[in-house]
């Protein structure tokens, strides 16, 4: 099969025109309004945050190798876990997939030239920088030892740099709002006319659902942190019991944001997995509309369940009951997604390349993370498991086993698009294997510890937990090596990878119609609007070493102009 000359023109490299090379100099990056460059800058930023917080995690795990003091005092340990949590949550996980991957991919998937508000996009990145800088300032001045949750009254009385840290989280919140607002408007108004809602790739649906949460929940975090700062500076008596305030009210405020924020972290990951499973099974995703609506359902239900973080906090029993009941309802849309992914595998043609390995390991780990959520949503078992290592293991299975795995899978999937070069697939799979094994070894023992009663946030522990902690620590180092290898393979590919064509994986969503790396305007040609999972429309062209539209070899194709926007 050989491509038409026109097709060659489409997928040929336009070196001088691609977004990486169209302009140069540090300013062309720092002041860029191009969503792709902002995405890359975000990616570098969140990776630095990941490694920083990851180092904290390894220090923590080393300290916990035995139950007595090894090399950290209790105060130092508390600062370590707080900074690990705060940086991971606010500076890494929340912006990771939406702001880094999403920024790069979303407009291209839509067939748009850019997001709706490029300046706001850049502002979001700089707010991220400022917010992270504030968190680091807290770390370098007086430390922070409140836990990432900033629970009052401890956060009012501690001598550490709570105000810097809360300012940091506040600013990061606005960064997140800006990204969400931008994406929501982009999806609504920047679609070409022929890009209907049900032609959107599922990653966009999940980002859209994420944006809804970012817009509705994050402002509440903002006001909560402002009130906390006011409380600390001048004791306004809203959260401070010494002046008639209510500490449990703070928890309501905090979790009104932070529970939906959990879905900010996981929904985009689910979107990535939907793409990966479908592309590498080379089969149309099963139950498109169920997956799409389950994203929105999770986003909305996420606002109704925050009280399940507070079952033992002293909130009233009626509220506890209501929140527990609603919590179970969130399980259903999540389960729907998993079943649909399985059904997509069925009768497909499964390529076990690195991104697919990550996707399968996501299903495994997220399966455990999700199912262990049942123990915590159930009231009587939660009373026992609350604030133990069981909870720690549960959310790490979801956040690391889920989001980080999906981020890595997504990076391996879109890396050739971002840089036009292919990574070493074998080493990629080795990295994936190490991450998988290390992760399970780290966190599985924590389930056992937790149900046996090991409380979280403990610098010193009783001897019966030692064996589990040691397994966990060894696992953490394997996990660390795995992540390092995974990123190493990617970075190596940028400089030494084999150059590849526009669509090496035969994916059908629109971003693959651009050249790799894409040109400054994303598409040098009119977009061919095909369905996002219509892999039958893609054929492999040996001459160009890339997949191209079947239409490019068989002349008749319905032309769809990509111009007039749809009504919002």
């Amino acid at each position, binding site marked *: 099969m050989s491509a038409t000359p026109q097709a060659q023109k489409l997928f040929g490299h336009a070196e001088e025109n691609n977004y990486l090379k169209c302009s140069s100099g540090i300013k062309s990056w720092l002041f860029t309004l191009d969503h792709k460059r902002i995405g890359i800058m975000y990616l570098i930023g969140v990776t630095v945050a990941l490694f920083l917080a990851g180092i904290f995690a390894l220090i923590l795990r080393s300290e916990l190798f035995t139950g007595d003091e090894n090399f950290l005092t209790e105060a130092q340990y*508390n600062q370590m876990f707080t900074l690990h949590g705060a940086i991971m949550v606010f500076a890494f996980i929340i912006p990771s997939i939406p702001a880094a991957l999403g920024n790069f991919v979303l407009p291209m998937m839509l067939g748009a030239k850019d997001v709706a508000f490029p300046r706001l996009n850049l502002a979001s990145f700089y707010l991220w920088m400022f917010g992270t800088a504030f968190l680091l300032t807290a770390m370098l001045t007086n430390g922070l030892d409140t836990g990432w949750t900033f629970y009052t009254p401890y956060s009012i009385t501690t001598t550490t740099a709570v105000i810097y840290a809360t300012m940091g989280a506040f600013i990061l919140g606005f960064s997140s709002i800006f990204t969400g607002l931008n994406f929501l408007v982009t999806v609504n108004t920047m679609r070409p006319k022929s890009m209907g809602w049900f032609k959107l790739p599922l990653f966009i649906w999940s980002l859209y659902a994420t944006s809804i949460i970012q817009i509705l929940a994050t402002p509440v975090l903002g006001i909560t942190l402002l009130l906390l700062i006011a409380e600390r500076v001048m004791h306004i008596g809203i959260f401070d019991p010494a002046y008639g305030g209510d500490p449990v009210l703070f928890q309501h405020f905090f979790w009104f944001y932070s529970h939906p924020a959990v879905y900010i972290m996981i929904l985009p990951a689910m979107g990535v997995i939907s793409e990966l499973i479908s592309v590498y099974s080379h089969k149309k995703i099963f139950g498109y509309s169920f997956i799409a609506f389950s994203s929105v359902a999770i986003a909305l239900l996420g606002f109704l369940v925050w009280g399940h973080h507070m079952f033992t906090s002293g909130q009233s029993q009626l509220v506890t009951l209501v929140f527990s009941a609603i919590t179970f309802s969130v399980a259903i849309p999540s389960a729907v997604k998993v079943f649909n992914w399985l059904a997509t595998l069925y009768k497909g043609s499964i390529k076990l390349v690195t991104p697919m390995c990550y996707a399968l390991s996501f299903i495994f780990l997220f399966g455990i993370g999700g199912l262990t959520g049942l123990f915590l949503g159930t009231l009587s078992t939660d*009373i026992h498991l609350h604030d133990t290592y069981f909870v720690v293991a549960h959310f790490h299975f979801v956040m690391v086993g889920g989001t980080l795995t999906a981020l890595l899978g997504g990076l391996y999937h879109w890396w050739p698009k971002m840089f036009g070069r292919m990574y070493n697939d074998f080493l990629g799979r080795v990295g994936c294997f190490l991450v998988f094994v290390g992760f399970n070894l780290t966190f599985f023992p924590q389930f056992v510890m937790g149900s046996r*009663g090991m409380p979280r946030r403990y610098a010193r522990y009783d001897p019966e937990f030692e064996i589990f902690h040691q397994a966990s620590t060894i696992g953490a180092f394997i996990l660390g090596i795995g992540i390092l290898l995974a990123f190493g393979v990617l970075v190596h590919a940028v400089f030494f990878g084999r150059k590849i064509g526009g669509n090496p994986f035969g994916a059908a969503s629109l971003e693959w119609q651009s050249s790799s790396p894409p040109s400054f305007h994303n598409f040098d040609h009119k977009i061919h609007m095909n369905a996002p999972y219509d892999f039958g429309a893609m054929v492999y062209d040996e001459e160009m070493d890339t997949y191209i539209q079947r239409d490019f070899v068989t002349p008749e194709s319905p032309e769809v102009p990509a111009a007039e926007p749809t009504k919002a």
Partner: protein
Amino acid sequence: MLNLIGLLAQTESESLVPEAPAYREGSYWFPEAASTFAKDVDPLFMLIFWVSLVFFAGIVGFMIYFVIKYRDRPGHKVEKSASHNTALEIAWSVLPGFLLIWFFVDGATGFFNMRVTPGNAEQIQVIARQFNWEFHYPNGDATTELHLVRNRPVEFVMESRDVLHSFFVPAFRQKQDVVPGRYTYTWVKPTKEGVFRLYCTEYCGDSHSLMKTNVTVHNTQEERDQATFYPWEDETPIKNGQRLFNMKCSGCHNNTDVKKTGPGLGGIWGKTETLADGSTVEVNDNYFRESILNPGAKLVAGYANQMPSFQGKLNDDQIFWLRAYIKSLTPDAKIEDELNLPASEAREKVGEADGEKPAAE
């Protein structure tokens, strides 16, 4: 990371946490069940566990099977299959729902058992503070370790003096946060004799991980009373002071010269301290008393004004005992003779010497 470097200089203090009792394994997942709640929690946990395992095995099993069977290989093609199947999708959305309802109902029932105290329960007051527990029994005894009677339901009326804490006994499967500014309640009916661990599970500051103590379940009321009884009048003021110190002060002060949240109190008697405003003060009877009743008045340089006032919380006898103990921590301080007499006699002696009797509140 300047602060961390600064903290390296500080060494760990001697721990007042009681020795951990031997872990008594109940099942692979749980410690030995020592309260009635275990029958609410453990079977439900195992039920969810097996249901989850079946689902998980199914998911992963199918996943691996599909990956092997439909792997991309020469000659293998995507087979035609439905792009969606509404009936199937609704089925796998709805059917697990019934299981979830079961979990919810079962869990809620257990939860109400754990939260609604039976009428015949005895009440024990729990005071949580950074970083120790204090238990007050109906007969007036007070301890820092918890003592219970087997098969007698007991309600804990809990109050925090500073920040959030949480009362957790894994063997009892019971947990409740202790919230400043309100009372929280929880109850338990111990069913096994023995010693178990009690943890604080709500992060509460530097020594959060040392805020743990033991729960001893006794067979009879007599044994319990014996364990909690402390003959204040017959012991020496120094010993009384030590006991009080462990209850009230050890959360923030060491009995050595090592700094904790507050200054270490070992060897401090007679020393001259520099205050925050640059002036100095000698640690003597008057300064000691003032520091307890009005801690903010003369702050030693380098410390925040964090200590609560004990005005009305400690009577004169108790302050006297504490003073005796603190004094005894300084090797070269002159210990008055009466400090080695039983407390009741010491009180009379001191009264004679001062020409007045310390008024008990």
